Each structure stands twice: as structure tokens, then as C-alpha cells.
């Protein structure tokens, strides 16, 4: 035990002291914070307002195009050809031509511009026209005022409440769940790949530098393998912790420095995290407005107390469990080969279940209770990622325990098998190993 601790310590310290670790630790949050902050700034950076000349032969749209921060509309009366030739001179970005039509209500328009107009500009114009035409049609054909129609529209706020077996009811917030689960699942995916590969490289390094036999004459190969796996796990946890802290620090620092730019409502589209914030606000404000519902504070408190503890707990379990399951296999691959170039053939079966769970994400999110989601979250090779995505939707304790139990069993099994391959592989030099060979190694006596 003392020796395994020595190994863990060495594996941890040598990696944490590496320049690449320090660079990654600093760069990671900068990138992440960049992902959060840059879109905000980009959204703030309004493009130059573009002028669009409108030639409205129908006369139905005068004053109907609203100028906003991106486009400004200028109604002109000159004919189209003149307007087109005047574009440069008058500093018009485009000329919108709405021709007179036979029918009372026009359904066509042409936008002339020198450059390809942006999608948002097109849809803005389209929508403005559509709205007006709908209005006209309602008035002309059905004699309904658009305002009356608006008043009919009602918004339904469907509060979903899960009834657990114990009879307690809880509100479900699928938007937050969605983001949290997804984020957790993807984090686990990256953790397994990044640090699994580190374990593998560590084993290959020991093998190629020929130190491994010196070490296994003092400790059992299993101790060396587990020491490395655990040591790297601590490296990973350290890195993620630092990333989260630094990212938060940078984000908070920026939002303190530019508080006006970080009011969430302004740029809903820019960020998932902010989207949830908005959603929480919308949901809770709606809930608060409706009589008989708990007030805003209670709702938020509810989200905090019910979901988060479970999600964080489950996340940590699958984060560590998934890593351990795969790390042992990565260690075995490292032991079976002589150089990193030879790892390809063995990497494939290990990475396929991981990539498969990411590919199936969309499917699972659409139907988190379906049989595929169920089985993928039970099978240990995919469960760390898939269960993480399912968990916020509410999983029966039985399923969760089954999945966790199988993950632990799976970990014991892969580690047992990996240890056998590892033990033989680390002392085997200059030999191309096949699957058949690996299978034979499993039968060797310790």
C-alpha cells in the first residue's frame, strides 16, 4: 500500500510539474472563457447600419419597415433603374423593389444588392412583409383586425411534474436538465479520452525506456498499473478543478469589469448557459405570476436542492467510474505495443463504444426513456456518458443502482483482464502482438 502511494505520488507530481500541464491549465479556461465572452462582445459589436432603399409601387408598405440597429429603410420614388445606378452614390446597401401586381395583395419583392445580403436581413424583410400582408388579408378577406387576433392568442405554460413512487411531486425543468446532462456527459467523454490516453502513453514510456523491469522487481505489476491509473486520475481532477475555478474567475472578472454587457436577456442566443438562465427566469416568472404557485424563490430553491445534489453525485461517480473502466484498458494497450504508432489496431474497439454513445446523444435526448437509452445506460461501456445525459430526466433508483453496480463490476472485470495483459505485455519487447496473442496472455499463470 505504501508502495502504491509512492507510485501515485510520482505519477501525479511528474505530470503536474510538466510545462504542458501548466500551459493546458492556463489555456483551457482562457479558451472556455473566450467561448463565453467573445460571443457577448460580438453581439455587442453592431455592424454599421445599412441603408436600404425601398421602391414601393403598391404603396401598401409605406412606413411599415421598421428601422432597427442593423438596417435603415429609406423610401424613395425614383424608378428602379435609376435607383440601381445610384446605389453607390447614395450609399445604399440594397434596393428593395416591390412591384405593382394585378391582384390586390402583392406577394413578391426583389432585393437588389452588390453583395450577398445576410440571412438575417433577408428574413427581417420577409417577416416584415409577411406580417403586413397577413394583416391586409385578414382585413380584406375576413374583416378581422389583427389586434383582435392577437388578443385570442394565449400562451399555455405547461408545468411538468414528476410523481415519484413515494408519491412526492417535483417540478421538472427539462431545459436545465438537458444542458446539465449534456455538459456532464461530454465532460466525461473528454476526461476518459484525454486521461486514458495519458495512462497509455505513460505505460509506453515505461516500456520503451526499459525501466519497467526495474520497477516490477520491487512492486507488483498490478500495483504499478493501478498507481499510474490513480495518479493520472488525480491529475485529471486537478486539471478540471483548476479549469472550473479559473474559468469562473475570468468570467466573473469580466462581468465585473463590463457589467452592462453581461445582462443575460440581451443575448439569449449566444450561450447555452445563458439560455438556461433566461429559461429559468421565464419559467420562474411565469410560475410566479400564476396564482397558487410557489413564489420565485421557492422554485429556484427547489431546482437547487432537488436536482443538483443528485446530479453532482452521479456525475462524480460516472466521471471516476467511467475513467477507471477505460483507463485499465488503455494501460493494457500501452503494455501490448512497443510504440504509440502501433496502438491504432487496439484503440478501435476501446473507442467505439465511447464514440457510439456520443453519436447516440441526439437520439437519447429525444427519448430518454426509450429502450435504446435504457440499455446504453445500463451497459458499463456506454453508461458513464449515456446515464449522465438521462439522469436529469429522472431515473428510477433501481435502474441507477443497476447501472452503477454494473459499472463497478465492469471496472473490476476490465481491470482484471487488463492486469493480465499488462503483466505479460510490459516485459515483451520487439514483438508485433495480435488479438490472438492477447487472448493467450489472459490464460498465463501469474
Amino acid at each position: 500500500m505504501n508502495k502504491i502511494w509512492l507510485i501515485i505520488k510520482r505519477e501525479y507530481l511528474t505530470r503536474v510539474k510538466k510545462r504542458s500541464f501548466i500551459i493546458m491549465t492556463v489555456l483551457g479556461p482562457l479558451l472556455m472563457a473566450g467561448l463565453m465572452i467573445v460571443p457577448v462582445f460580438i453581439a455587442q459589436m453592431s455592424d454599421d447600419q445599412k441603408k436600404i432603399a425601398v421602391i414601393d409601387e403598391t404603396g401598401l408598405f409605406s412606413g411599415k419597415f421598421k428601422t432597427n440597429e442593423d438596417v435603415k429603410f429609406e423610401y424613395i420614388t425614383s424608378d428602379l433603374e435609376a435607383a440601381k445606378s445610384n446605389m453607390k452614390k447614395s450609399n445604399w446597401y440594397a434596393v428593395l423593389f416591390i412591384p405593382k401586381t394585378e391582384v390586390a395583395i402583392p406577394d413578391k419583392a426583389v432585393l437588389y444588392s452588390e453583395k450577398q445580403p445576410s440571412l438575417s436581413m433577408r428574413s427581417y424583410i420577409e417577416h416584415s412583409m409577411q406580417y403586413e400582408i397577413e394583416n391586409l388579408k385578414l382585413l380584406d378577406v375576413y374583416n378581422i383586425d389583427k389586434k383582435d387576433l392577437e388578443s385570442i392568442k394565449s400562451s399555455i405554460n405547461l408545468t411538468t411534474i414528476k410523481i415519484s413512487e413515494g408519491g412526492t411531486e417535483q417540478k421538472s425543468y427539462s431545459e436545465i436538465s438537458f444542458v446539465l446532462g449534456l455538459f456532464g456527459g461530454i465532460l466525461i467523454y473528454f476526461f476518459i479520452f484525454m486521461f486514458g490516453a495519458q495512462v497509455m502513453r505513460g505505460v509506453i514510456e515505461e516500456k520503451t525506456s526499459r525501466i519497467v523491469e526495474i520497477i516490477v522487481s520491487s512492486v507488483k505489476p498490478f500495483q504499478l498499473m493501478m498507481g499510474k491509473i490513480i495518479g493520472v486520475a488525480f491529475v485529471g481532477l486537478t486539471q478540471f478543478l483548476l479549469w472550473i475555478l479559473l474559468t469562473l474567475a475570468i468570467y466573473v472578472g469580466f462581468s465585473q469589469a463590463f457589467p452592462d454587457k453581461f445582462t443575460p436577456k440581451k443575448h439569449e442566443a449566444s450561450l447555452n448557459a445563458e439560455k438556461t438562465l433566461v429559461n429559468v427566469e421565464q419559467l420562474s416568472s411565469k410560475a410566479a405570476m400564476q396564482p397558487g404557485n410557489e413564489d420565485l424563490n421557492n422554485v429556484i430553491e427547489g431546482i437547487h436542492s432537488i436536482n443538483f445534489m443528485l446530479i453532482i453525485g452521479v456525475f462524480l461517480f460516472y466521471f471516476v467510474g467511467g475513467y477507471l473502466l477505460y483507463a485499465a484498458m488503455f494501460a493494457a494497450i500501452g503494455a501490448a505495443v512497443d510504440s504509440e504508432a502501433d496502438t491504432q489496431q487496439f484503440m478501435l474497439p476501446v473507442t467505439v463504444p465511447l464514440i457510439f454513445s456520443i453519436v447516440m446523444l441526439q437520439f437519447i435526448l429525444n427519448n430518454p426513456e426509450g429502450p435504446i437509452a435504457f440499455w446504453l445506460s445500463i451497459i458499463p461501456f456506454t453508461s458513464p456518458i449515456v446515464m449522465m445525459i438521462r439522469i436529469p430526466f429522472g431515473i428510477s433508483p433501481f435502474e441507477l443502482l443497476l447501472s452503477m453496480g454494473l459499472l463497478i463490476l465492469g471496472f473490476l472485470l476490465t481491470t482484471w483482464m487488463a492486469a493480465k495483459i499488462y503483466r505479460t505485455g510490459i516485459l515483451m519487447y520487439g514483438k508485433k502482438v495480435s488479438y490472438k496473442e492477447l487472448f493467450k496472455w489472459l490464460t498465463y499463470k501469474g
Partner: protein
Amino acid sequence: MDFLVVENVSKRYAAHQALTDININVPAQCIYGLLGPNGAGKTTLIRIVNQIIAPDNGRVFLNGEPLKPTHISMIGYLPEERGLYKKMKVGEQALYLAQLKGISKKEAMKKLKYWFEKFEIQAWWDKKVEELSKGMQQKIQFIVTVIHQPKFLIFDEPFSGFDPINVNLLKEEIFNLREQGATIIFSTHNMESVEELCDNIALINKSKKILEGKVRDIKKTYKANTFKLCYNDFKGNLAEILPMGFDIQSEGIDVDYRTAIIKLPKTATSNELLQPLLPHISIHSFNEILPSMNDIFITQVNGQNQTI
């Protein structure tokens, strides 16, 4: 008392038989040569003694007890395939490996200081291993092999990659260790060092032990009653004046003298050879040719390979 006893040990790797029913007795405080061509099974046997792998059959006793995990701290092992973490600093690494052997950090520090001073390599402490030459790295490896003062040492091809000066340094240290009471196994196919160092040997070929014993006894057993004669003042044919049954294997000229290698009949003595020669020739030198370990090794291994 025998320090290491290997009893009927066999080991098989799928289609490959690595060791067949090996029996070996290594007396305490002796330097024991484990000889054999590449792939004979030496390293497998050593790994079994080190408890890196387990035998399929047979038993191993160390110091009278069956092998157990605590024995590991009694053994110092310098493997043939050896290296160090390239990116780690020399001192840090030596300290780590010493601690893995089960000695405390403080103790390890003290011992390392002693050895680094002895080999005059204190300046390397903070260097990275990749900055050292191969010979320098071997010195570090030797130090970490003996740092915990093991009673039992196993050197697998210890001299490969060493320059002659370092080989001598190492030989000296190996003798010192034996003086201090250590038992040493020395695996090699470098026969010169065997004659110089080993008290006993075992020869392994194709997974089987084919020869074991004291180096002196083995040489005696395998000597062929052959002598080398150096003489001059004789113009005739040496064969004509030799008694019956005495066989000239080769003749030559060595500067001012003529030489002949003569094989005697099994029971004949050197006097029986010299007496008839003395009246005819003046003898410059005369000595028995003892078989070198190299010859014994080659004849034994070839002999066995032919019979199979």
C-alpha cells in the same frame, strides 16, 4: 547452506517451453554464473526468482523459506533490459526507486550520498537522465540495485554497454558485495567474465539445465589431456620420436621456436611425453591446455543441439 534452491521448476508460454524441470542450488556467499545462449530461459528463471512471474510447476526457496512477497526487499535485481525515466532528475529518480525497495526516504538519502560520493557523481544529482551517457545511466542503475543492501543480487548481463574502466569498477564492487556476505547470481554469455568472477555455474540450453558445478571442477572434467610444447634445435619430424598413441593436433612456428599441440592418451602423464623427447630437442616451454569456459560452453551447447 544453499541460499537459493530451485526445485523442478517448469514454465511454459503457450507454444514455447521456457523452462523444463530446472534444479539449481546456489551456495551462500558465492558468485554463481547462469550461462546459456540467447533464449535458453535464463531471464525467465530470474524473473521467477524475482516473483515477477510464477512458475507452472516446481518450488523456489530463498534462505530456506519458500518464496514470499517479503523476499523482494532482500533481492537486488539489475535486469538485462534496463533503463530509467528519461525526463526525471537523477537524484529524484534514485530516491524514488530506493523507496520502492522499501527503505525510508531519510535512509535512502544517506545511502545515495555514500554511493554518489564513491562513484564521484555528485554533480549529476540535478541532471535529467536523458542528459547522461549510457554508461553513466548504468552506474545509476547499479546504485539503485544495491542501495537497499540486499542479501541476494541478480545481475543480468551487467557489463553490456560499459567501457572497460567501468567494467573493472563494477567487478570490484561485485567482489566487495560478496565479501560483505551477499550471494550473487550473474547471468551472461560473456565467458571471459565468468572465468574471472564465478565460483559456480549452471549452463542452461533450450529450457534445460545441461551442466552445473564449480568452475574449477568443470574445467577439470572437461580437460582433454592436451599440452602445448615450445621447442627448437630439432630439424626432424616430431611425430617420429613420439611414443605410440600420442597425437599431434597441430604444429606451428612461434618466432624462434617451433610449437606443437599434443593430445595424450587418457591415462598417460606429461612425463611420459617428455622423457622420449628430451634427448632430441631443447624444450623452451611446456604447459597443459585447460579448456576455456567458452570452449566448454560451445561444445556443450552444440553437442546438445546435435543430439536433438
